[in-house]
């Protein structure tokens, strides 16, 4: 997902009435977040679980919401996902940055990057990996999921080094 794709993804979700974008930043999706900041639609929380809590409150009040985080933060959030989002069936879109996708990524990301697909599967989270050619279809799929009352996750792979 290059810069243009990430900007278009944000605009597409906003146009489709996702009103709140709450999370902890990840460089993998920095263009997505910067676009949201320009549009004044982003809340940066202190931790990922907090972001999920705020987004849950907004959803309970009838306002469509999305949370974004790096996979390290997704790891922090597992109990919040099972005992809040899944237990109450809160329809939220997660965008998760996949650090450790490349085996040459920084060492702190390698183990989690490797086990991330299995963890998503174990949790039973419906997931699509975003790429330049199919991101719009995946975003439409995510919007349909929350319309039906389900949570789901969109994954952005970390395909570069900095």
């Amino acid at each position, binding site marked *: 997902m290059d810069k243009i794709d990430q900007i278009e993804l944000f605009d597409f979700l906003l146009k489709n009435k996702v009103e709140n974008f709450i999370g902890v930043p990840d460089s993998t999706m920095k263009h997505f977040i910067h676009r949201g900041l320009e549009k004044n639609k982003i809340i940066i929380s202190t931790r990922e679980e*907090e972001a999920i*809590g705020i987004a849950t409150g907004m959803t*309970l009040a009838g306002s469509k919401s999305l949370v974004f985080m790096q996979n390290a933060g997704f790891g922090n959030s597992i109990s919040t996902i099972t005992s809040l989002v899944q237990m109450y069936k809160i329809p939220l879109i997660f965008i998760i940055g996949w650090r450790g996708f490349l085996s040459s990524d920084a060492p702190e990301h390698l183990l989690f990057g490797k086990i991330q697909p299995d963890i998503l599967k174990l949790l039973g989270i419906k997931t699509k990996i975003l790429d330049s050619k199919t991101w719009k279809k995946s975003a439409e799929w995510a919007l349909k999921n929350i319309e039906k009352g389900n949570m789901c996750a969109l994954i952005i792979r970390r395909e570069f080094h900095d």
Partner: protein
Amino acid sequence: MIKKKAIEEICLKNNNAIIVSANGFISRDLFESFDKPDNFYMIGSMGLASSIGLGIATKCPKRKIFIFDGDGNILMNLGSLVTIGFLKPNNLVHFIFDNSSHESTGGQPTMSSKIELEKIAMVTNYKTFKIKTLNELQELLIKLKTISGPVLVLVKVKNNSKISKRVEYEPEQIKEQFMNSIRENN
């Protein structure tokens, strides 16, 4: 003051407030003493009642939002005080029922016996109050009607002698009745 008595007093004087209650005995006390559709009983996700309340407060600006938190709960999510103070929802009142213990897990001590939580909230833009008696609580509840939030009320409490019953609704039912009530009254 006994925790359940404080909860009853707050609810009786504010029956129109949306309430988000922390997991454990606080949700059980609220359910037993003042059940209503726009109570959100957070029965898992310890620490997050204040974050859920913040999300609701920003989207329901015409309603009063009360958070019923515990000392153990807020200590797990102190960052929430920063986020609430930054976003400054004027309709949010954050009660912390402080018994300096994790009552629901067997009464293990928390660090609120030596750390004044209301002082932390003060530097994150809350208006703060500390309450020890029923009289003080009754006076504050009148005053609160004219104070703009975010407000933090630290209520020093003693544990109930009897444990309240568990919340009897299924989680999805809690959500559905809460969302329906918000939709009808927002």
